[in-house]
C-alpha cells in the first residue's frame, strides 16, 4: 500500500533568537519568564530588564518537559546556563508545571505587564488571543490589571479554531490570514459559532464552489466578530494592543481593526512573547525585593 504523506497544515514554526548584543557577564540581574500556554510555550531571558533571548515552541504532552526544553533552548548558544538565572517566574495555563520557577503569576497579570513593556505606558486595553483562550484586559499606565474578561470554554475565537480551519482548507496556518484577505469583497460571516459546526458550514460552502479565499474570509470574519463581542463587554479604551499567538494572523488583526475602527499599536517585538516578558519583568522585581535592592 502506498504511504500517503499528509501535511500538518496546523503546524507553525518553532524557533529561538538572541536579540541583544549585551554581554550578560556584566549584568546585575538575569531573569527568565516561562509561559506554558495550552498550545505554545514561550521562554524569554532578560538581562537587567532588557530582552536578551527567547524561544517559542509547541507545548508537548508533559508540561514539565516542555518548560525545561523551551528555557534551555532560549539559553542555547548564549553561554548562559539555567543555574545562572537569578529568578524565574512561570505563567500561562501550565504555569504550575515549571519546575525551576520560584513563583507563578497568572497570565492575565503577565500579559498586561508584558504589553506595557512592548508597547509602552499608553496601553489601556490588551486583547490576548491564545491557543485555547481569549482575554480582554483593561490596565493602567503601570501595566496593572484593572479588569478583564476571558473565554476559555469555547474554541471559537481562539487559535485552536484557526488550526482546525487550516487543516480543513489545506492552507498552512502561517499563510491563513493572508489568504483570507485575498478577496475583492468581504463575504457574509460563517453563521455558526461552534468550531465543529462552522467547519461543517465551511465545507458546505467549499462544495458549493466558493474559492478557499472566500471561505477563509467568511470564517475569519466570524471569528473577529466573536472576539469583538468579548472586547466590547470589557470596553475598549485607547491605546489598544493585541498580543498572543494569533497576532501572527493578519486576517484576524486587520478585521479587528476594521470592526472596531481603532488601529492597534505597532509592536516593537513579537507580541506572542507578552506573557513571558511580563513574567521576566515580575521575576526581576521579585529578585530585587528578595535581595533588598528596593
Amino acid at each position: 500500500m502506498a504511504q500517503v504523506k499528509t501535511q500538518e497544515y496546523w503546524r507553525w514554526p518553532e524557533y529561538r533568537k538572541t536579540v541583544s548584543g549585551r554581554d550578560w557577564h556584566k549584568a546585575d540581574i538575569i531573569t527568565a519568564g516561562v509561559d506554558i500556554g495550552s498550545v505554545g510555550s514561550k521562554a524569554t531571558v532578560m538581562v537587567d530588564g532588557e530582552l536578551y533571548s527567547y524561544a517559542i515552541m509547541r507545548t508537548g504532552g508533559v508540561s514539565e518537559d516542555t518548560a525545561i526544553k523551551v528555557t534551555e533552548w532560549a539559553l542555547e548558544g548564549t553561554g548562559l546556563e539555567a543555574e545562572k538565572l537569578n529568578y524565574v517566574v512561570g505563567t500561562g495555563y501550565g504555569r504550575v508545571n515549571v519546575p525551576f520557577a520560584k513563583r507563578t503569576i497568572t497570565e492575565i497579570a503577565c500579559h498586561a505587564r508584558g504589553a506595557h513593556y512592548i508597547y509602552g505606558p499608553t496601553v489601556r486595553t490588551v486583547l490576548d488571543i491564545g491557543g485555547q483562550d481569549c482575554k480582554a484586559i483593561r490596565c493602567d499606565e503601570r501595566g496593572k490589571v484593572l479588569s478583564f474578561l476571558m473565554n476559555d470554554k469555547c474554541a471559537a475565537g481562539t487559535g485552536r479554531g484557526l488550526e482546525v480551519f487550516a487543516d480543513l482548507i489545506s492552507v498552512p496556518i502561517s499563510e491563513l490570514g493572508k489568504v483570507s484577505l485575498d478577496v475583492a469583497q468581504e463575504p457574509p460571516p460563517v453563521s455558526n459559532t461552534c468550531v465543529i459546526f462552522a467547519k461543517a458550514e465551511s465545507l458546505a460552502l467549499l462544495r458549493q464552489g466558493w474559492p478557499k479565499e472566500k471561505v477563509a474570509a467568511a470564517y475569519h470574519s466570524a471569528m473577529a466578530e466573536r472576539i469583538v463581542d468579548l472586547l466590547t463587554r470589557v470596553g475598549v479604551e485607547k491605546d489598544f494592543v493585541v498580543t498572543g499567538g494569533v497576532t501572527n494572523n493578519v486576517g484576524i488583526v486587520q478585521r479587528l481593526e476594521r470592526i472596531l475602527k481603532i488601529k492597534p499599536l505597532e509592536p516593537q517585538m513579537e507580541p506572542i512573547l507578552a506573557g513571558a516578558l511580563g513574567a521576566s519583568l515580575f521575576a526581576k522585581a521579585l529578585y530585587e525585593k528578595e535581595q533588598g535592592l528596593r
Partner: protein
Amino acid sequence: MMTAGVDVGAKMAKVVILKDGHVLSRAKGLVGFDILKSAGDVFQKALKDAGISRGDLQRVAATGMGREAVLQKPPINADEVISEVVADAAGACQVVPTAKTVIDVGAEEGRGIKVEGGKVRDFVINERCAAGAGTFVETMARALEVRVEDMGPMSLRSTNTIPMNAQCCVFAESEVVTLIHAKTSKDDIAKAIHDAIAGRISSMVLRVGVEKDVVLIGGVALNPGFGPPLEKELNTKIIVPEYPEFVGALGAAVIAANPQR
C-alpha cells in the same frame, strides 16, 4: 386516514407512515448533500414498506432542520412544515401519554421540552454548541479510534469517574488525546465522555424544569451509555421509548392527521 411525518434532521432523515393512529412503516437514512434527494429516497422506502403510494396519503407534514427543502417538492410534496419542538411534543405524548418532560438529543441539537397532553408549555434549545449534541460523542469516538456505536457499551463497562475539564468539543478532543497518552483505559474515557454530555444536557433541561414522566428521544437515545449518567444528573428515572429516533417524525404524522388542533 393515512398521513406521513418526515423528519429531516442534521444527519438522518426519518419517515413514519401512520394509519388511524397505527404505524404502518418506518424508514431512515443519511441526509446527504442533496437534502431533497436523500429525504425523498427514505420517503419512497417507507411508502414501499407500507405498500402504498403518495396519492394514498391525505397529508404529509415535515419537520427537522431540512424541513423547508421538502415542502411542496416531489417526491415528498409535504403539505406543511412543523417545528421540531412541536413535533417532538406530539410524538412523545403519543408513545408515552403521561410524559411531562421531553429530552431530544439529535446529531447537532439538544432540546428540553415541557409538555402537557401533546402540547408544548415551555422549551429550551441548544443549537450553537456541539458539546451538547450527538456530534460530541462522534468526534470523541474518532479521537479514541473506536466505532461510535461501541462508545455506549464501552462506557457501561467502566466504574471509574474521571472528570473532563473541557466543555468545548474541540478542546475535549485534545483532552481525550492527553488521557490516551496517560494510558487511561478507553472504557474509562468513554464513560467520562458520556458523563460530560449528560452534564451539558441536564444543565440545559433544568432551565425549563424536570417533571415526571421524563422521556428521552432522538438518535442519541439509542446510545445505551447516555441514559444512565443523565438519570443520575437529573436524579429521576428516564423512559426511552422503542424507536426513539422516530418520535419527531411520528409527531409530525400525528399532527398531519389532526387538522383541527
